[in-house]
Each structure stands twice: as structure tokens, then as C-alpha cells.
């Protein structure tokens, strides 16, 4: 049971994070009426801040709740998360530096800005941007659902707590822009590193290096089940090439001061992957020791904390989980808000919008996106295994790979091929998720292949076919970018 002092500690940590996020608006005094200052922090963050910022962007409530949960319920399959992170960073080293270079030269804030110029098409830009916006909703919803059990364990009323926590998130993003979550990420990651190191060292000593835990759950649980091998590989590979397509991650990357900041971070950010390994092991501990009441997988990590640590440390860790959901949600809503502002408002509603008007739209969009995600979080789809929510987002975003990544390397790629490929890929992905009633992202009717991977394969095949037609029929292809601007 939690004592008053534990509650005090909890509120101090969460409160401190929120205050720091609001103070972000004064950090490195900038003119926040400029959209590049509000939306991507004025492209001036160095390697240190970007390390924390991207850490907060990538390692979220998903890592803290879903990974132990999935290790508890499905076992070795969760290693896919460790695997895809390890292939994501070197891939970013190549593709993120290139998109950064192009964006900096031309002043892009979003992937939609790039797509508009690259293909000279506002419609394609809108399709890609809408994909990004819609994919952010389950991702933010996952952050919301992720803290449900923590709130329950601490005896807070869930719905009012959700609303208060996420209104605060929307408020500090609106006020501070990217500087809010950037500064708050220092608090969030400092606390989570401290919590995770403490838990791992303490339990590592208690369980003799976790060897006995593996022995207790046995190979049938800790290995990837053989019939899910295709699912494992397609999910890992597809997820590992999709990070640049995430609006929230691109926002973080574009805030870097230079390409070199991104390069150095693809060397040092993978250190965070250690979290995933040990958080997965926490799920195995919960299983081996029978700690989880009524098999609710999301309770795996909270149950471990409950069982082995005193109430004060548990309150601190719970505060870490709560801010580990709020700071990422801030970045996700900001990434989506940038798309709404730049690629819907500026392109379709008010072409002559001034910078302050764009920032105002961004601020309002943040509130709308957070409200929509809260609504999404309360639907039945969200109450199941939240681990799958994120794979939906990945599956849809993956269909923008040709528009955003392939187009940087293939100069003659045209908008018709990319648009039709995107439509086919998105349709196949959505149909695939529909056949399993949105309860999984692996398709049992085709070797358990990952729906997003199947969609991407169809997407690329259709794109190549249409490109052949476009080439032979001699349709004129335009771009606002010269070849040398894509170098």
C-alpha cells in the first residue's frame, strides 16, 4: 500500500516534469511565433539533447508496459523489438542524414513538405501526411492505455486522471512547442535510467543473473515459437525500416543542429536498447514467479515492482512510467500537429498563412489530436493487448516508404506510381488487419506474415508496374527539386 509520502513523491516527479515542459518555452529564448522554432525547436539541438529527446521519442509506455507484457504472454517473440531497434539505427545513419540535408536546405518541417516538392503534388503530400496523422492516433492512445494499470494501482480514478494528464500534455506542447518535451525528456529519461538500472541490478543479484528465471520459464516460452518465425522476421525487418516515416521521430531528427548530430546518435542511441532486453526479462520474472493477477499482461512490470520493491521506490517507478507516457505523447501530438499545419492548413485552407497563423493552428491541432486519441483509447479495440496498437501504426506508415525514402534515391520515380502503390499497400494492410479483426497484425492465412510487410510488397509491385506504364506512355513528370538538391 502506498503511504502519503509515496504519493507526494509521485506528484513531485510528475509535477516537476510538467513544470519543466512549460518552462521549455523560455529555454534558449527564441521567437515562438515562427513555425520552425515552435515545431522543430529551430534546428539547434546538439547531440546530447537529441539523445535524450529521441530516447523519449522511441522508448515510451510501449517499452515499459507492452514489452514486459508481451514477454509474459508470448515469450521469445518479443525479441523482435530488440532485433528491429538494432537494425533501425544503422538504417537511420544512411537515410535520416539524407532527408535532414534536403530538409535543411529547403526549410522543410515535415515529410509532407518534402513529398510536395519532390513530386510537385499537393495531393500526394496530403495522402502521406494523413497517413502520418492517422497513425499517430493509436500510438498516442497506446501511451494513454499504458498508464491505466499504474493509475488503478495507485487508486486514482482512471478517466479523470487520463483527461487531466493529457490536457496538461496538450497545454505544454501548445505553449512550448518542441522545446517543452525536449527539456522534459531530460527529467523523464534520467528517472527511467535510474529506475531501470536499480531494478536490474537488484533483481539481477537476487536471481543470480536471471539464469534461473530462464530455466524456470523454459525454452518453449523464451524461444520464438517456430510457427511464428515468418511473422517474427517480417515484423522485425519492416519495423526496422520505418522509423524515418514516423512524424514524431522526424520532428526529433530535424531538430538536430547538424547531420553529424544524427550520425553520432546512431552510434550512441542504441544504448537504450539495453532497456528492452531487461524489460522483456521482467516479463519473464513475472511469469516465473506467478506475480500477475488474472493474467493481465500489461500488469507484468508493475507487478514485479510491487512484489520486490518498497512502496516509495514503486511510486517513483510508477511516476517514471506516467511521464514515460506523457512526454512521448507530447512528441507524437506535435509531430502530427506539424503535418496538420503545414500540409493541410497551409496547402489547402490558407495558402498565404503567416508564421504566427501557422503556429496558432499547430497549437489548436495539438488539443484536437490529444482529444481524438483519448477517444480512441477508450474504444474496445484499445482495451485488448495494447502491444498490437503500435504495430497498426507501423503497418500504415510503412506504406509511405516509397514516397519518403525511395524517392530520395530514385530521381525518376513519379507521383502516379507512388500514389497508386500507396493506395494498394494501404488497402491490403487494412484488409489484412480486418481479417484478424484488428486483434493482431500477423496474418494466420499466410504463414503469419506481418500485415504491413505484405502491404509493402504489394505497394512496391504495383508501384513498379505503374512506373513502367508511365515511362512507356511518356507522361510528363515534374518535381520542384533539382537532381542536385536530392544529393
Amino acid at each position, binding site marked *: 500500500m502506498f503511504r502519503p509520502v509515496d504519493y507526494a513523491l509521485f506528484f513531485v516527479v510528475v509535477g516537476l516534469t510538467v513544470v519543466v515542459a512549460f518552462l521549455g518555452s523560455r529555454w534558449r529564448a527564441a521567437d515562438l511565433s515562427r513555425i520552425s522554432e515552435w515545431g522543430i525547436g529551430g534546428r539547434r539541438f546538439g547531440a546530447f539533447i537529441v539523445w535524450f529527446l529521441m530516447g523519449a521519442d522511441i522508448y515510451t509506455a510501449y517499452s515499459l508496459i507492452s514489452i514486459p507484457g508481451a514477454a509474459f504472454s508470448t515469450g521469445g517473440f518479443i525479441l523482435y523489438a530488440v*532485433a528491429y531497434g538494432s537494425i533501425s539505427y*544503422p538504417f537511420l545513419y544512411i537515410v535520416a542524414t539524407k532527408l535532414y540535408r534536403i530538409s535543411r536546405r529547403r526549410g522543410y518541417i515535415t515529410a509532407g513538405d518534402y513529398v510536395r516538392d519532390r513530386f510537385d503534388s499537393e495531393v500526394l503530400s496530403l495522402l502521406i501526411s494523413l497517413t502520418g496523422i492517422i497513425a499517430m492516433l493509436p500510438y498516442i492512445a497506446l501511451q494513454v492505455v499504458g498508464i491505466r494499470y499504474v493509475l488503478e494501482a495507485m487508486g486514482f480514478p482512471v478517466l479523470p486522471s487520463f483527461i487531466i494528464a493529457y490536457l496538461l500534455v496538450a497545454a505544454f506542447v501548445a505553449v512550448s512547442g518542441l522545446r517543452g518535451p525536449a527539456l522534459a525528456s531530460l527529467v523523464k529519461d534520467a528517472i527511467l535510467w535510474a529506475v531501470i538500472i536499480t531494478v536490474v541490478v537488484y533483481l539481477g543479484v537476487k536471481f543470480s543473473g536471471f539464469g534461473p528465471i530462464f530455466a524456470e520459464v523454459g525454452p518453449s516460452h523464451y524461444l520464438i515459437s517456430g510457427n511464428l518465425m515468418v511473422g517474427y522476421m517480417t515484423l522485425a525487418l519492416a519495423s526496422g525500416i520505418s522509423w524515418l516515416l514516423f512524424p514524431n521521430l522526424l520532428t526529433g531528427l530535424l531538430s538536430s543542429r547538424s547531420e553529424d548530430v544524427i550520425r*553520432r546518435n546512431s552510434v550512441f542511441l542504441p544504448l537504450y536498447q539495453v532497456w528492452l532486453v531487461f524489460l522483456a526479462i521482467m516479463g519473464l520474472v513475472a511469469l516465473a514467479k506467478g506475480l500477475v493477477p488474472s493474467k493481465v499482461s500489461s500488469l507484468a512490470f508493475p507487478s514485479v515492482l510491487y512484489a520486490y520493491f518498497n512502496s516509495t521506490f514503486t511510486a517513483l517507478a510508477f511516476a517514471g512510467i506516467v511521464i514515460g507516457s506523457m512526454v512521448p505523447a507530447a512528441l507524437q501530438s506535435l509531430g502530427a500537429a506539424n503535418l496538420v499545419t503545414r500540409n493541410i492548413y497551409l496547402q489547402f485552407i490558407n495558402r498565404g498563412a503567416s508564421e504566427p497563423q501557422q503556429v496558432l493552428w499547430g497549437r489548436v491541432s495539438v488539443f484536437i489530436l490529444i482529444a481524438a486519441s483519448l477517444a480512441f483509447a477508450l474504444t474496445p479495440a484499445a482495451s485488448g493487448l495494447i502491444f498490437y496498437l503500435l504495430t497498426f501504426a507501423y503497418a500504415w506508415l510503412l506504406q509511405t516508404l516509397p514516397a519518403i525514402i525511395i524517392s530520395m534515391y530514385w530521381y525518376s520515380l513519379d507521383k502516379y506510381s507512388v500514389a497508386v502503390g500507396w493506395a494498394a499497400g494501404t488497402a491490403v494492410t487494412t484488409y489484412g488487419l480486418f481479417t484478424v479483426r484488428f486483434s493482431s497484425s500477423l496474418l494466420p492465412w499466410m504463414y503469419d506474415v506481418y500485415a504491413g510487410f505484405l502491404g509493402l510488397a504489394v505497394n512496391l509491385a504495383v508501384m513498379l508496374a505503374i512506373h513502367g506504364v508511365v515511362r512507356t506512355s511518356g507522361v510528363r513528370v515534374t518535381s520542384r527539386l533539382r537532381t542536385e538538391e536530392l544529393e
Partner: protein
Amino acid sequence: MGLRGRDLAKVLLLIVVPWAFIVLAAPLYNRPQPELGGWPFAWWYLTAWVFIQPALTYVVYRLIDRRGGS
């Protein structure tokens, strides 16, 4: 090395090697033995790659792109 050779080496170390050893090798590393400190092979192998890949990326950064340090 010319530009082509450098690009090829980067694609090899940042895409081909990690995809092959971390993802495509899954059916090979998905086994309990040999253990290391009680950890099954699959688990310590992937944990080792959490450190091996950044080391390879660093090699690309210093030796191929010739950035950082002096």
C-alpha cells in the same frame, strides 16, 4: 576507396550485415544452447548485437565518413 567503394562499404556495414545477422539469422539463433551465464543463446546473442552494431556504425563514422575526433 572511391565514392562507389565507400557507399558499398556503408551499405554492407549498415544494412546487409545487421539485416543478415540480426533478422535473417533468426532461425539459426533461436535456440537455448550454448548458454552464457544461464542466458539462452537467442537472448545473449541479440544482447551482444545491441553493442556490436553500434561498434560497426562507429567504424563507418570514423573510417569511412572520416568524421569526429581529429
